[in-house]
């Protein structure tokens, strides 16, 4: 279909763009930067902050360039005297309602309002300070996400994120006019409402109104405590994004540098959540095959299919709130983070002769929901809190800076052993489709004795940024134990972002779905787009991080979880076999029905 082209002039430069393009996007094509606050590439247009106003020749009022489409013959000025004065006033008005305590703010240096203020170099405030009760507007009820309404500029990026990307709407616009706030149902604490702790709102908040509950001091204290043995685990998606906060290009892998930095910071052992990702595949893959056997051979009608992954704690909590009737479809496997903690304080502590009560497990995650997860009462199967502290990728970057480590100059180092070895299958847990791909690589081989029938083991149909992906594999030439699966077409689906998950769950709920296995990651793009990852985020940034994940996979000599030599060793020495007694005790969990309202 041919698109109508529109001719216009921006700052006296002619340009032709497609009909429907906003003035803001047209100006971008000409490399004229117009400041924005409420606008975000992942969200619908709001046009409420007014920072992006421009002058359109012949128009009485200034136009919000994000919300105004171009028209034929339009003449736009993005930096006229009128625009400049208006923009300065708009920013100053926002500042007059903003608790300007930048030096103490967690988002200091990462705040878009601060950045604008620094561009415009305001002198004295020309408007009076309207922030009341500045110290009483904080909500720190959640172990994952903190809110400070005194910093909020009501751009509603969080509201749109929670609704459009996650279909949760824990946050909404409350009241109107000068009483307008962004808040929860009846202003209840965030921990008491339907919030899944995904942290996507934090990723998009332009100020310090939303930020992670941070545990940096607690972790430093543990490191400095001579009586504590501090073990750190790192999630797959952190290694492809950490560099962004430390002056390294987006999409650059920094695995070796990250290991080196963690060691220099003083962690006693630097281990890998990827190891337990491989372990998850062993447990979850076996769980899938067991459920299939019960359904097909034993004709057990109580068996819950499709099996759904349980690695993403935001997704798990979403399911507990929204689809309690599907809660038993969730795999009983703990997430790799929690499997790691449970093994670290039992098997590993024994092996290295450290008392579990003296061990502190810290995990580095691209995620804010992981902070909630490690505080769940079920997550104490070692007899202690299995994972003590969870730091986001952002917090780790800050700590690396605090430690005075010049990250870009570090030499690559390798993880400690045991619980440090991983395969390519584990690395791809970090992006949407990855858990599915890893599971299929192993399950297919267990069933047939052959590798999955895809070039280089790359299962393309489950890759990419499509909201809901479907794939199927015909099982042929099964080994004798798995004869019952001969000729079965294994059907799978993958969703990322909770709005997509909701769509998929509605199909499952209707009974029309014929899937055997479903992977859901709570965040757009999977963990690479997690709520604890460096800010900003966009489709392009997430794509580059995902490419880095797949590159890391291709670079690994072992790319199938069941071939991880350390996983084999841990089963031999300790766990015996997947879904065995010890596994049940340490690596599996159960879920709670939570109120949606």
């Amino acid at each position, binding site marked *: 279909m041919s698109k109508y082209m529109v001719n216009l002039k921006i700052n006296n430069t002619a340009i032709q763009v497609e009909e429907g393009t906003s003035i803001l996007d047209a100006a971008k094509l000409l490399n004229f930067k117009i400041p924005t606050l409420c606008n975000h590439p992942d969200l619908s247009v709001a046009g409420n902050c007014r920072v992006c106003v421009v002058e359109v020749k012949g128009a009485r009022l200034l136009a919000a360039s994000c919300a105004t489409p171009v028209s034929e013959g339009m003449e736009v000025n993005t930096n006229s005297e009128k625009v400049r004065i208006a923009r300065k006033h708009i920013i100053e008005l926002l500042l007059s309602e903003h608790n300007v305590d930048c030096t103490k703010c967690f988002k200091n240096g990462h705040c878009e309002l601060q950045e604008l203020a620094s561009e415009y170099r305001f002198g004295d405030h020309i408007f009076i300070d309207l922030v009341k009760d500045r110290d009483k507007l904080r909500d720190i009820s959640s172990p994952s996400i903190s809110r400070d309404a005194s910093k909020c500029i009501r751009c509603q990026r969080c509201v749109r994120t929670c609704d459009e990307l996650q279909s*949760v*709407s824990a946050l*909404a*616009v*409350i009241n*109107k006019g000068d009483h307008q706030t962004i808040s929860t*149902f*009846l202003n209840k604490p965030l921990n008491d409402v339907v919030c899944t702790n995904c942290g996507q709102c934090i990723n998009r908040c332009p100020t310090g109104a939303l930020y992670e509950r941070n545990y940096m001091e607690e972790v430093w204290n543990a490191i400095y405590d001579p009586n504590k043995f501090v073990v750190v685990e790192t999630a797959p998606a952190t290694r492809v994004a950490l560099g962004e906060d430390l002056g390294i290009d987006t999409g650059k892998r920094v695995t070796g540098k990250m290991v080196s930095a963690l060691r220099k910071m003083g962690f006693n052992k630097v281990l890998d959540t990827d190891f337990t990702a491989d372990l998850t595949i062993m447990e979850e893959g076996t769980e899938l095959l067991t459920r299939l056997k019960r359904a097909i051979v034993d004709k057990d009608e109580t068996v819950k299919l499709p099996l759904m992954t349980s690695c993403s704690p935001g997704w798990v909590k979403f399911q507990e709130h929204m689809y309690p009737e599907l809660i038993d479809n969730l795999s009983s496997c703990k997430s790799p983070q929690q499997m790691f903690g449970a093994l670290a304080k039992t098997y590993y502590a024994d092996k290295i002769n450290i008392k579990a009560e003296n061990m502190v497990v810290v995990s580095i995650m691209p995620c804010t929901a992981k902070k909630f997860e490690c505080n769940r009462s079920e997550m104490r199967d070692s007899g202690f809190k299995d994972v003590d502290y969870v730091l986001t990728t952002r917090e780790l970057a800050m700590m690396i800076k605090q430690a005075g480590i010049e990250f870009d100059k570090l030499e690559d180092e390798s993880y400690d052993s045991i619980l440090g070895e991983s395969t390519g299958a584990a690395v791809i847990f970090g992006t949407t489709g990855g858990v599915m791909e890893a599971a299929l690589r192993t399950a297919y081989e267990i069933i047939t004795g052959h590798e999955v029938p895809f070039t280089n083991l790359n299962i393309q149909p489950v890759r990419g940024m499509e909201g809901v992906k479907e794939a199927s594999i015909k099982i042929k030439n099964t080994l004798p134990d798995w004869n019952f699966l001969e000729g079965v077409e294994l059907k799978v689906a993958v969703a990322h972002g909770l709005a997509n998950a909701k769509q998929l769950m509605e199909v499952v709920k209707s009974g029309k779905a014929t899937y055997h296995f479903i992977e859901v990651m709570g965040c757009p793009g999977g963990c690479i787009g997690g709520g604890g990852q460096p800010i900003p985020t966009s489709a392009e940034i997430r794509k580059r991080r995902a490419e880095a994940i797949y590159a890391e996979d291709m670079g690994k000599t072992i790319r199938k979880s069941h071939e991880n030599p350390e996983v084999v060793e841990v089963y031999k020495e300790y766990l015996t076999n997947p879904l065995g007694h010890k596994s049940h005790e340490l690596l599996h969990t159960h879920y709670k029905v939570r109120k*949606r*309202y």
Partner: protein
Amino acid sequence: MTNTEVLIHDLVEKHGKNRNALMPVLQGVVACEKFLSEEAMVAVARELDLSAADVYGTASFYTFLDTKPRGKNIIRVCKTISCHMQGKEAIIKAIESHLMVKTGETSPDKKFTLLTANCLGWCHKGPVMLINDEVFPSITSEKAIEIIEEFAKKTI
């Protein structure tokens, strides 16, 4: 099901499950119960497959969709400039002392809540008072109390 849930179920039957049914459903609840309780907002959210925060957000935007408990009759005296100049202050004081409440409060017998309102569009006949949906223009303190007493008699 509680009475509130039955009421909301019936309203949703009438107005449908689309998001644009939210306003008439909320208005229907307020017409019967005088305010939107937590229970009512949750039930509306559940029926319309919305988040509770979303429903509360909408309710909190509109002055006439109250989220605080109210009496059986709601008195609203216009507080805007024309009515102010025509003596609304004296009328409010008279009602306050008659009902023994302050503006914003509900009488102990729960028969009346006294509120103020922004312009009701009766500037030519101020001061104006609204009781529930009924408009009473050109009132005096005495007349206001007389009207309120009549409502009191009708209210069980």
